């Protein structure tokens, strides 16, 4: 090391008043001018290079989801054109009704969403003709994941290509700011693939599991599409427990079930208790249970609207119990901590029933969520 110092000085590096300092001054000057003129474009270029890694990751995830869907469709199919039909299905979209005249928009959204669901189910049944109802539900969910992954990839690629074309720092900034959330959602969806393939319960099914545990030992009956209910007696009170029909991947129609029980079956509940999985905030523990009032149900809002309408019409109090988890946990195989949350939620529901329904009274308990891997 010591012997190399004179050589460095000889070539002008590190000597007193050396050439290197002059070179650095020049470099700084050039750097300053370049950054003044092309700073934004360079910054956008560097960010685009980072974004391109995420776009590539999303492309690989999309392809993997597609391969899973093909594998499962082929398992129950004799057809040769599975890939062609699947590629067509992956680009299915639905057009939201106009909100220029918002009266009756919920019914319109419901109609279009039902149509979309029916179409996908019919297509899946058409391809996987050898699959039973449970397999059809699970394959339908796998195809839905494929559709979501395809859409995520296409939208991110659109903004990436647009940012590349325009070199606009503002477009690139927006995309980069959104990417962690988008990637988190994509990874969560990929985690759900395994669960649906093997028919294992996912975190979102926490509400359905609460209902299933209440239901056990009684005969359940179909009350709406993919939805069952059972009347149980709990400490002298009659409770209609509602959940999606398992163990296939269904979310059911809890809104239709509640409406039917009240309006068609003539039941008069003192309360409706809804149990669902809820997204936790960063810092909150998985499996934490919280109580509140209102309709505990996610989605676009159609079912929530219907439940609120019925509850308002008949003046029925709506109680909510939620089991907290992250987005990733909600669509991944149910973790041990969520089971603890389920047991805690069961105790909370029992307490609400004791406090809010008089002995000899009647109430409705709804376990909301995807019931994949959960029977009744």
């Amino acid at each position, binding site marked *: 090391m010591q012997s190399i110092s004179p050589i460095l000085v000889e070539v002008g590096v590190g000597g007193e008043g050396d050439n*290197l300092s002059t070179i650095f001054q020049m470099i700084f000057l050039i750097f300053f001018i370049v950054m003044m003129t092309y700073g934004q474009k360079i910054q956008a270029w560097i960010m685009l290079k980072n974004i391109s*890694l995420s776009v590539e990751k999303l492309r690989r995830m999309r392809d993997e989801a597609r391969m899973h869907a093909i594998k499962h469709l082929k398992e129950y199919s004799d057809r040769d054109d599975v890939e062609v039909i699947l590629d067509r299905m992956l680009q299915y979209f639905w057009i939201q009704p106009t909100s220029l005249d918002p009266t009756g928009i919920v019914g319109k959204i419901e109609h279009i969403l039902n149509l979309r669901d029916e179409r996908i189910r019919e297509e899946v049944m058409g391809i996987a003709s050898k699959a039973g109802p449970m397999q059809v539900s699970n394959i339908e969910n796998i195809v839905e994941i494929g559709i979501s992954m395809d859409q995520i990839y296409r939208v991110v690629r659109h903004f990436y290509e647009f940012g590349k074309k325009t070199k606009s720092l503002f477009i690139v900034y927006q995309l980069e700011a959104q990417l962690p959330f988008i990637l988190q959602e994509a990874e969560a969806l990929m985690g759900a693939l395994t669960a649906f393939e093997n028919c294992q319960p996912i975190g979102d099914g926490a509400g359905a599991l609460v209902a299933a545990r209440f239901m056990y030992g009684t005969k359940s009956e179909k009350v709406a599409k993919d939805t069952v209910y059972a009347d149980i007696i709990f400490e002298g009170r009659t409770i209609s427990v509602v959940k999606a029909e398992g163990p296939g991947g269904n979310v059911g129609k809890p809104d239709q079930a509640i409406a039917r029980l009240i309006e068609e079956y003539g039941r008069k509940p003192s309360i409706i208790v809804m149990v669902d999985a809820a997204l936790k905030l960063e810092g909150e523990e998985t499996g934490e249970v919280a109580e509140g009032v209102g309709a505990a149900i996610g989605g676009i809002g159609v079912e929530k609207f219907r439940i609120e309408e019925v509850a308002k019409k008949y003046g029925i109090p709506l109680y909510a119990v939620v089991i907290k988890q992250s987005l990733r946990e909600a669509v991944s195989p149910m973790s041990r901590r969520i089971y603890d949350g389920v047991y805690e939620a069961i105790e909370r529901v029992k307490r609400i029933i004791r406090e809010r329904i008089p002995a000899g009274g009647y109430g409705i308990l709804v376990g909301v969520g995807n019931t994949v891997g959960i029977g009744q």
Partner: protein
Amino acid sequence: MGILSGSGNKGRKLILIVYLLVSIVILLFSAFFITQAIQAYTLYQYERGFSLLFTGVIGLALSLYMLSVYMRRPGLIRHKEVRRMVAVVECVSCSYRDRRDYVSGDYVMKESGGCPVCGGKTLVTEIYPEVVGRG
């Protein structure tokens, strides 16, 4: 698409090797310049020390950035948690509880044969992933 995502597999491998070698060479040179700078400072040669330190730090930052891009390259196999699915079986009549490997076809609330303690019905009450190591 990315800096390190070439199209051909063979070509991509060559790019990766050259990229990694360049990053390491810059890192080694930077380390050398920094040690020289420390030596210069101990000999009170501040101007020489500053030039060497400056070159070293710039080189170090560049090489670390290049290495971080290399580590985040697409297609890199990362060691993930190895998980296995387990199923908990409970008796509905007594306090019997057992944990076993998940078997295809299991689902929660599925009846799972007789209880070895009291002969009553058993149910699969939990199915969840358990971390068994890293692979």
